[in-house]
């Protein structure tokens, strides 16, 4: 794409009161695209600094990789929001801000006197994005949650796990409950910004992780809305009303590929057969009887066995690249380690090196939004606790006296 020019959120000021990834991700994306995101933390640091893993085992507030991942490109300001002085500083920051991101649950917000509606009053143009487990109202609004509990109540967890139902549903990795809430927070914020540009009016955006996950299980709700059936979890493939064949195949190098055989599909079969024949591994599947979809369906178990052996006799990357070359939708089950060697990601310059003070530079995933007309900011390391307190408060205090003049 053509050379990008300028940053999307240049000049946008954001105050982040987030204490979990749901809000932090929204702040991160804004910061990556050029916003000035000031993360307000208590004196002991954001609770997300107390979550490992840690860089080179250094278990302190400035070396949490959890914090590095969700908070890079931001500035850190320490304010004690339980004190009048801390609140006054916060309100000075909010008065000059465009956006405030908060994750305080209603009882926490009440205790601090910082409910979303109060924050909203800081300025008529302020957009407050509140991202909480259950939203700001309703019978569960004060309940506690977590990524696991959120995924359970919201229902995606019901679709994830193994064929063996003596094993409980298994949580997909990577904070996806929070990620889902953050995605709607981001979309809500963008709609609120567009509305503000048109009307000058601020907004309260109230996101409940529970609501987001309740619409986040793909086919489960439509299967209930229409035929009125439930889906049941299966190993690493779609939960369905009734069981289907396995879709991950182990390869010779102990890695896996994901591949769904649609045996009823008349187009896919000859492609798969030709691929197997090219390696002399079709066994008896070249029997013309298998050209008939009904015969394939009747002998699915045998086909599955032959295909399992076929994949076992090659590496996962061989199967992935050759299958894709044959236009089959097959995926290699990459580990995070494997991504660093991926030729495609390298060609797109996806991972980018980020400098740190006291550890060597390290690769971070790049910004997943690419625009021809504008760019993203260079990635910079997460701030140390309170690294920007003095400069930010000084600017806010002088800004406030400017405004009062």
């Amino acid at each position, binding site marked *: 794409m053509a050379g990008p020019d300028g940053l999307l959120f240049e000049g946008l000021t954001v105050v982040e009161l987030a204490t979990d990834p749901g809000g932090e991700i929204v702040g991160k*994306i804004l910061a990556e695209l050029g916003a000035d995101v000031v993360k307000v933390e208590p004196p002991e640091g954001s609770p997300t600094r107390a*979550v490992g*893993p840690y860089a*080179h085992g250094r278990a302190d507030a400035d070396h949490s990789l959890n914090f590095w991942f969700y908070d890079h490109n931001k500035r850190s300001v320490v304010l004690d929001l339980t004190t009048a002085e801390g609140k006054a500083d916060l309100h000075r920051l909010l008065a000059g801000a465009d956006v405030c991101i908060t994750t305080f649950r209603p009882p926490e917000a009440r205790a601090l006197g910082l409910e979303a509606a109060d924050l909203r009053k800081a300025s008529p143009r302020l957009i407050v994005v509140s991202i909480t487990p259950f939203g700001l109202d309703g*019978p569960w609004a004060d*309940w*506690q*949650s*977590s990524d*696991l509990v959120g995924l359970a*109540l*919201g*229902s995606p967890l*019901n*679709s*994830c796990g193994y064929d063996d139902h003596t094993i409980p*549903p*298994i949580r*997909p*990795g*990577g904070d*996806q409950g929070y990620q889902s809430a953050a995605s*709607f927070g981001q*979309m809500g914020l963008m*709609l*609120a910004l567009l509305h503000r540009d048109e009307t000058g*009016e601020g*907004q309260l955006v109230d996101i*409940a992780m529970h609501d987001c996950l*309740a*619409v986040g299980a*793909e*086919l489960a*709700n*439509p299967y*209930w809305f229409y*035929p009125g*059936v439930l889906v049941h979890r299966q*190993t690493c493939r779609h*939960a369905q*009303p*009734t069981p289907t064949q396995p879709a991950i195949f*182990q390869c010779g190098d102990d890695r*896996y590929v*994901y591949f*769904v055989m649609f045996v009823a599909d008349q187009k896919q079969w000859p492609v798969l057969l030709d691929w197997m024949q090219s390696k002399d591994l079709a066994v008896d599947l070249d029997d013309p009887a298998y050209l008939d979809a009904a015969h394939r369906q009747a002998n699915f178990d045998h086909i599955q066995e032959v295909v399992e052996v076929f994949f076992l006799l090659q590496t996962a990357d061989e199967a992935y690249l050759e299958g*894709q070359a044959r236009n*089959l*939708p*097959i*995926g290699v089950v*990459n580990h*995070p380690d494997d991504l660093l060697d991926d030729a495609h990601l390298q060609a*797109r310059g996806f991972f980018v090196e980020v400098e740190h003070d006291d*550890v060597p530079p390290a690769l971070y995933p790049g910004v*997943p939004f*690419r*625009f*021809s*007309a504008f760019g993203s900011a260079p990635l910079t390391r997460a701030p140390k606790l309170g690294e920007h307190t003095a400069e930010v408060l000084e600017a806010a205090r002088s800004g406030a006296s400017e405004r009062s003049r």
Partner: protein
Amino acid sequence: MQDAPALDRSIRPRRGPLAGIRVADFCWMGVGSVATRLLADFGAEVIKIEDRIRIDTPRRLPIYKGEPARNFGEERLDADPDRGGLFNNYCRNKLGVTINMRTKHGRELAERLIARSSVVSENFAPGVMERWGLTYERLRELSPSVIYARMSGYGHSGPHAEFRSYGPVVQAVSGLSAISGLPGREPSGWGLSYMDNQAAYYNSTAILMAIYRRNRTGEGTEIDVSAVEAGINLLGPTMLDVTVNGRSTKRPDFPTGNRLEWPHAAPHGVYPALGEDRWIAIAVFDDDQWTGLVGALGKPGWTDDPRFASQEERYAHQDELDTHLGEWTAGRDPVETTELLQSHGVPAGTVQNAQDLNERDPQVAHREVFFEMDHPVIGEARFEGTPIHFDHLGQDNWRSGPLLGEDNEYVFKQIVGVSDEEYDELQAEGVL
């Protein structure tokens, strides 16, 4: 006997922050349809362009009202495209037209529609739009400040740009599947096309960002969002453990199932409950929550065990802890257990299914997460709302999903300016 009043399908001006934005929407499948759904929900005039020969998959998936369920993958080729429930859920609030892009007149008609649109969206394999001549350069000639939103599995550059993918392939390739499962066995991954949803959200966001920018500069942009790259951004801090610490995830104790490596929560798991395949998730992060749990349990003797005396001790003895807790949960109704634990300040929740969400969940009901609209073929149906609450904005639901080609006459005559005679010719030629 009186006929039921005809369903009002009339087209009205849209409300919301995107009112006035017209989208020529070539998107299809789940990921594309979800991405432009948000735009339609908040006032954009999204014109979904379909092909009568290659029917959009959600129209064909066998999710029908009043019929026994079939697994998807078992669709009937002769299925009525207007009965698909998934399509209705994905395409409500959009207009629907048909254009045969294999014909010269079809491509000309598409260009005329693009000339009257300010956003063009597509999620075909790279190369398809180019084959129709619809490059960004051409689009700018037709609509100078156009936003061209291109959504694909791998992005529009790089050696794998043309690889075929759908949600589960993206989940596998981006690492999301491998980080999910019990240690020492195959990954459990995902039981849904999670990345169809998440890539769609990233694409919706990217379009809104481009509109925000265009409102300031007057300039459009081409957008390239790769679902795999979005997926890698969702891996979380595990990715940095690899790149900063050089710690491989290919090790016998990874992934960690329902347990957390960080923070040291314990108990942290999914426990059996009363009923067939019913479960409850419980997560204890600190001493206060542990004290709440012990109180909810009625302070049984085992909770005094010194192995459970601190969060670190509990984390080190999760097997024993899980056995005790699982014995307690197993004979109890999960909904009652959830309420009991929450009343003691313990994060806990039933593993709810779609029936629970729709029929029992008071929070979903209070927040009006789902809504109903009528449809001429399907009848009254439920929809998943866009779960964003505002104090000054709202979702604008004006119509259920379009019938195949339902809005051809309105869009081509009123918006594009096709004359009655030409319209009849296009129909006769099989362009529509």
